[in-house]
């Protein structure tokens, strides 16, 4: 039975955040309201703190609600910045044609597991196996498919507990796209998106936010979960394992700064003007397969000129490699800076933000 409501955890919240119109104070100070991705939350929190020193008039107010909520609330105009691990779908763009999808950084996603006694060992997994686990076709850790990939490991005869996000999530988008690109049957079935109709698997769990995914996995022996790369520290602290994943070239690659940058570099030239591009399952021998742009979802037309200017300045600061995109700031949070080609595209999009 899916114990979904037991896991209703609000990942993070910042005091003072309200879902109302932007506040332009009489003094000229502007508060930009942001909500969305729990993976991106630590980065935005760091940026908000740093930006206090860069701007005396703009404040960033944050909540972590998941990428689906970030896109929805930015589209509805209840926040000025929707943080999302996924770009808006064509359907969402058609419904809200004035929305911009602006990459601010590059992130990764980890597949974490809780195998008592062997969490320190690097477990190898591939897309079809993960798809089989999440559809319930593979139920035990000592299934022949997993054993064949991990000949040196003594895997337990224990039932696998797949854990997925309970709310609309960019992490679900990235993970399900990996399964879609690597597994025909998944492509023809659940496919990918922020909201997935997860196949019913006995014992499977749902969790809210990346924080919830880590906490749920930590108390679920023989569980497996996909978690945003910025929660690497939380996974390590909980003594959980992180899988090495099979990429498009057929190699098993561990998540690292190098393998994430390598994957992004294979595809950055394919980034279109609107920057809605998937980096998942990138080609290249050394590419880590779960990589994505972290997006700011914003309306090109803001309710007033002051808010537009404040938002524009903040986003330009965020993608500047001397400020927000400084790799020294990003490294501890497990994000990578934008390549020059993509930075120029983001810059051009940010400059489209204007008042009424």
């Amino acid at each position, binding site marked *: 039975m899916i114990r979904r409501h037991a896991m209703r955890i609000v990942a993070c919240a910042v005091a003072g955040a309200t879902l109302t119109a932007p506040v332009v104070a009489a003094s000229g100070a502007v508060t930009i309201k942001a909500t969305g991705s729990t993976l991106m939350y630590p980065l935005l929190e760091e940026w908000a703190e740093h930006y206090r020193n860069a701007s005396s008039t703009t404040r960033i107010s944050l909540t972590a609600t998941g990428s689906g909520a970030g896109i929805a609330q930015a589209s509805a105009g209840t926040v000025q910045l929707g943080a999302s691990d996924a770009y808006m*779908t*064509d359907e969402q763009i058609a419904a809200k044609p004035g929305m911009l999808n602006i990459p601010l950084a590059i992130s990764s996603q980890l597949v974490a597991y809780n195998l008592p006694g062997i969490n320190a060992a690097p477990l190898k997994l591939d897309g079809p196996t993960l798809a089989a686990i999440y559809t319930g076709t593979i139920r035990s850790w000592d299934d022949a498919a997993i054993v064949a990939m991990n000949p040196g490991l003594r895997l337990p005869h224990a039932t696998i507990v797949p854990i997925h996000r309970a709310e609309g999530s960019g992490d679900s988008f990235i993970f399900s796209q990996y399964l879609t690109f690597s597994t025909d049957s998944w492509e*023809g079935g659940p496919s990918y998106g922020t909201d997935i109709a997860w196949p019913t698997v006995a014992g499977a769990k749902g969790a809210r936010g990346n924080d919830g995914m880590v906490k749920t996995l930590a108390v679920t022996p023989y569980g497996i979960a996909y978690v945003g790369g910025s929660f690497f520290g939380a996974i390590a602290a909980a003594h959980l394992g992180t899988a090495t994943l099979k990429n498009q070239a057929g190699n098993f690659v561990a998540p690292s700064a190098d393998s994430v940058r390598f994957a992004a570099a294979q595809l950055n030239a394919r980034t*279109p003007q609107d920057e809605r591009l998937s980096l998942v399952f990138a080609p290249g021998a050394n590419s880590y397969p779960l990589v994505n742009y972290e997006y700011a979802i914003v309306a090109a037309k803001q309710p007033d000129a002051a808010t537009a200017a404040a938002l524009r300045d903040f986003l330009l600061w965020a993608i500047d490699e001397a400020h927000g995109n400084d790799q020294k700031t990003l490294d501890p949070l497990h994000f990578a800076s934008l390549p020059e080609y993509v930075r120029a595209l983001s810059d051009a999009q940010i400059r489209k933000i204007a008042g009424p």
Partner: protein
Amino acid sequence: MIDGRSTDASRPRTVQDYIDMRPTWPDGTPLPSTPMTGMQWLIWSLAAAGKFFEGLVVFMTGIALPLIARQFQLDAGQGGIVGAATLFGILIGAVTLGGLSDVFGRKRMFVVEMIIFMVFLGILAVVPGYWPLVICLFCIGVALGCDYPTAHMIISESTPSAKRGQLVIAAFAFQAVGALVGTGVGWLVLQADPALDAWHWMFATALLPGLIVTVWRFSITESASWLFVRGEHERAEAMAKRLLRRTPQFPKEIKLERVDTHAEKMNYGALFNQQNQRATILASVPWFLQDLSTYGIGIFTPTLLAAAFGGAPDHIRSTADLITKDILAAKGSALITSMLLVGITFAVILADRLGRIKLQVFGFVGCALGLLIASCSVYADGFGKIFLIFAGVMLFNFMTDLGPNAQTYLLAGEVFPVAIRGSGAGFAAAFAKVGAVLTAFMFPVLLKGIGQQALLLILVATSLIGAWVTWAYRIETTGVNLDTIGTGSRADELAVGAIVVAS
């Protein structure tokens, strides 16, 4: 004067005899061939235009569908239904509306099919969702299915016997011209507006010229041969006179003898009676077998296109990737269609000289050879592999378009008696499309089950069977007066089971 070689003294003069008459110079020398009248050229042009729009819209739909599927967020099952809708429509249209031309007349169905086509093309240009899309594609398919027999008959029952093959295949070739233009228009629209909803403009470009053709079709003559077998002798004479209006007028007078016609009631059962089953087998089975091998050679299309234009995106990672892939597919379609045009040009030149049967047999054998060469690519690497695939595919395409692709269409509209010609040709087209639908589903399974090499060798065999069936059930119609088919006259006896050398 009447050219004595075009008539048979043992039977009354038919409409086709009048159409085949060759004027003579005052010294008694006949013209080398029967000159076409303005109305004959108009009929041919409007039939060719219909084929042009078929090619245009079918290929534009091919380019538009990935965009539509993404915009409407179609899942795999819905995508499959969208992909099959037109093909299924052709199947239904060929059997139902195609056969109705035997009841309501060639011209009426020629107009009706174009109206159906235009109405649903117009809706397609603004279609709002999945089910309307499926309905539009199905109904366009129905119109195309009707056109298979109707366009053929409208030409073949109004043009001289000696030029019939040339004219029917030349009109058929306009499908390929339309495909090229459709691909080009699709490509241009995507270049100008690389957006998901650009497909609206693709379909919109065909609306105005299509409307002109639709209206113009009202002005042509009804098939005099069909009117005659219906017993409407006066109307048949009037239509023949309008059809053959030229300056100076020739023939001066058209008088059809009031004889009992052999009109058979519109009944599909008649296709399988002793008199017609030979024609039914000849028209249907080789066409079915030709569709099989066409799917087979399609296995190599991705390799061929990658070699010619570079690889497609590894996965669709953005709308831009989808459009890039679509443009690549458009270029591939243009390449394949160009090959088709070369083969079909030879078919136009040779159909009335060498005869349909010889070309179809020769074409099937050539297809088998092309498939065999392509199948040998599994034993080669690098350049050798690409060379064998190119050589095999090029040979196949040339041979199928010279032979079975053109000749099956031509024969299907010629081998049946006037009264059931629409039903017969419609049945043959539908039978072939049943094969196409079945193979579209079975091929991926077979490919996985028995492997590429074995599958291609099976197709080599089916192509050779196509050659054998063509020869064993041959009915050579080259130069034959179609009004005599199935009437038991001397010319018809000659036509069945014997090779008639065109005069």
